[in-house]
């Protein structure tokens, strides 16, 4: 197999030294993690590597030598480097060399056990693949962490191909802690040599997050314990709680906050993403809610809203009355049964009258209620929207009642019709056997049954029309409520953190890798550059809740 050497781009300009990394024999690839510079004492290098191997369970070893010829007169360095293969024995021994002023590298791999035959592969059979260590570490393309009691090397036996490379780099964090500017016995060069990335704010936040999380977790557990107390399980309260969407939303938010502020660390990157997405969505929610609150409470808008509410309810009731008068006449040219029409129409009109009186009774208190409800917007925009949806449900309660009456009447009529139709044909429904059986009826039973059947059939259009009209009205209200709930779900489950990462730091969300062939000269090893591929925005699915 072609020998592949994965070389970090940050070490391409480093001084000459030893190559330290891991050899993966199944892929015939050498993953170079760092370069050890002169001067060094071989014993100390071996000690450091043993320490790293124990701490990170990655089989780190000296893979070969790296020679960066800056001046013309460094021939002696070459001989010195060749002598090192006797001290650090590794199979195969890599010798990478870069000339000053030349873009092309030379790479030799010598196998000590296999004698060099005349047909042995030359420099053409070595491939150099450059990779950016920082991006590979942060892109988390490696498989999730193995169980801690696995032996070194066992965990990656199942990870094939490039996953083994990513896994090696990711697990060797211990090696990257000291670099060439530190005062240790061994000077290393790796991605941290270009400058350690850190931010004071992030560090402070990390330090402060521990006690804050503990405090908030205690508070939230108190709240959830209070909410699951026996008081709320009594019948009227539990029924109301289950019907109001505000309580549903509050419960959902409480669950999310408990998850975010739990003192357990996230196990894998997917969980961390989920937590971050939830936190960002909570922040956005609260920010939008506060904006809404400040808009509502300024310029006496609550008063205006309260003043507008009663006339709107009156207007809706008037429209309903007009609708019923239309139904009681000859709607759309259909001829209704006059008596039934009048009965149903007057029944519903009386209901509307009751409803209007109720609204007028409530009107002095509406402004105060709205003001207090408006305060709840500081809990979040989603809570405010859920309250709005509940208010709409309460205000259109009469439409819901009409729908229920119309539906029940229609349902009873259909049941009666089907049963009398069976009687008309001489059959009956056998409850024991759950099927239709033939039955012999007496003459008077048949007579009365047929009479009732014809009555019901002729009254069917009236009931059906009332049912249709009220179902459509109910559907309208349900559609409006559904749109509000859709908006709430959108704010709840939009993965803003992931979208932000995709825009600002796309390598954190890499979907794969791609290779680019760099300039090539015959007789020299092939050089490739490995880069991360950005996740496509079409992969963000919004239908999954808590998308990671």
């Amino acid at each position: 197999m072609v020998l592949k050497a994965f070389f970090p781009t940050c070490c391409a300009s480093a001084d000459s030294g030893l190559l330290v990394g891991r050899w993966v024999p199944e892929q015939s690839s050498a993953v170079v993690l760092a370069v050890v510079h002169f001067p060094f004492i071989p014993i100390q290098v071996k000690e450091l590597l043993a320490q790293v191997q124990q701490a990170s369970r990655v089989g780190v070893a000296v893979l070969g030598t790296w020679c960066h010829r800056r001046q013309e007169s460094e021939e002696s360095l070459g001989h010195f480097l060749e002598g090192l293969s006797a001290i650090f024995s590794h199979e195969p021994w890599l010798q990478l060399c870069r000339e000053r002023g030349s873009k092309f590298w030379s790479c030799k791999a010598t196998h000590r056990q296999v004698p060099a035959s005349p047909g042995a592969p030359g420099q053409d059979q070595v491939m150099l693949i450059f990779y950016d260590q920082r991006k590979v570490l942060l892109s988390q393309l490696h498989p999730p962490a193995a169980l801690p009691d696995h032996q070194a090397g066992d965990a990656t036996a199942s990870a094939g191909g490039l996953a083994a490379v990513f896994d090696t780099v990711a697990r060797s964090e211990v090696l990257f802690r000291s670099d060439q500017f530190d005062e240790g016995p061994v000077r290393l060069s790796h991605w941290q040599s270009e400058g350690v990335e850190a931010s004071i704010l992030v560090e402070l936040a990390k330090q402060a997050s521990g006690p804050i999380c503990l405090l908030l977790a205690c508070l939230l557990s108190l709240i959830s314990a209070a909410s699951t107390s026996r008081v709320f399980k009594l019948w009227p309260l539990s029924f109301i709680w289950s019907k109001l969407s505000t309580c549903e939303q509050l419960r959902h938010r409480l669950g999310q906050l408990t998850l975010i502020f739990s003192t357990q660390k996230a196990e894998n990157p997917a969980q961390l993403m989920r937590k971050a997405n939830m936190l960002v969505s909570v922040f956005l929610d609260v920010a939008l809610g506060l904006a809404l609150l400040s808009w509502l409470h300024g310029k006496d808008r609550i008063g205006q809203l309260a003043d507008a509410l009663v006339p709107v309810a009156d207007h809706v009731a008037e429209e309903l009355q007009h609708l019923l008068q239309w139904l009681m006449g000859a709607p759309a040219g259909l001829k209704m049964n006059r008596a039934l029409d009048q009965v149903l129409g007057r029944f519903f009109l009386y209901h509307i009258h009751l409803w209007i009186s109720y609204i007028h009774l409530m009107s002095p208190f509406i402004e105060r209620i709205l003001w207090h409800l408006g305060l709840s917007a500081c809990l979040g925009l989603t809570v405010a929207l859920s309250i709005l949806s509940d208010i709409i449900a309460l205000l259109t309660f009469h439409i819901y009642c009409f729908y229920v009456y119309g539906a029940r009447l229609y349902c009873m009529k259909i049941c009666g019709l089907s049963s009398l139709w069976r009687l008309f044909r001489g059959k009956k429904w056998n409850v024991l056997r759950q099927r239709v059986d033939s039955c012999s009826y007496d003459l008077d039973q048949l007579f009365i049954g047929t009479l009732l059947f014809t009555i019901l059939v002729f009254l069917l259009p009236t009931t059906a029309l009332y049912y249709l009209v009220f179902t459509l009205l109910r559907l309208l209200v349900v559609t409006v409520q559904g749109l509000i709930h859709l908006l709430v779900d959108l704010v709840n489950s939009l993965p803003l953190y992931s979208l932000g990462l995709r825009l600002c730091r796309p390598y954190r969300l890499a979907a794969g890798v791609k290779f680019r062939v760099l300039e090539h000269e015959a007789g020299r090893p092939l050089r490739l550059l490995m880069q991360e591929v950005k996740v496509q925005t079409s992969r963000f699915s919004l239908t999954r809740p808590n998308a990671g």
Partner: protein
Amino acid sequence: MEAEQSFSDICGGRLALQRRYYSPSCREFCVSCPRLSLRSLTAVTCTVWLAAYGLFTLCEKSMILSAAIFITLLGLLGYLHFVKIDQETLLIIDSLGIQMTSSYASGKESTTFIEMGKVKDLVINEAIYMQKVIYYLCILLKDPVEPHGISQVVPVFQSAKPRLDCLIEVYRSCQEILAHQKATSASP
């Protein structure tokens, strides 16, 4: 080593196949699709603008004309960025994998890389496409569960759709590398 040859696609348009042999273990095949023809562009623009002008004479609103210009521009930009593929490249690297790149007319590139461990074979398949029967080159991926099964078929050069003669050239070259890869991976 670079070589360029011209072939034709299934509709008769001219294609150019560029072959680059970087090393015995790394080869690249680049198929460039026919360019956006001026004739079709002019035809579409004229139809849209004539329709807009017809609507304008009916409604007497000048907003329709500016809207038509906007739509044409946005449509052209969207077409160049999302639909029109200029070049399709297949890069095969022994013991690493196969990479397919599509470059769009606006410069956008979309890349897919398949590791060699997942590749079972590279074959030429026949398919019924609209009213024609065409040949296409595809990569067969191994099934992790069943050793002799195939989990996925990934077609190559989907937008260019070259004819059989071009596919045979690419197929022969790739099979040399795949055969070498199989020989070295079979031996422990």
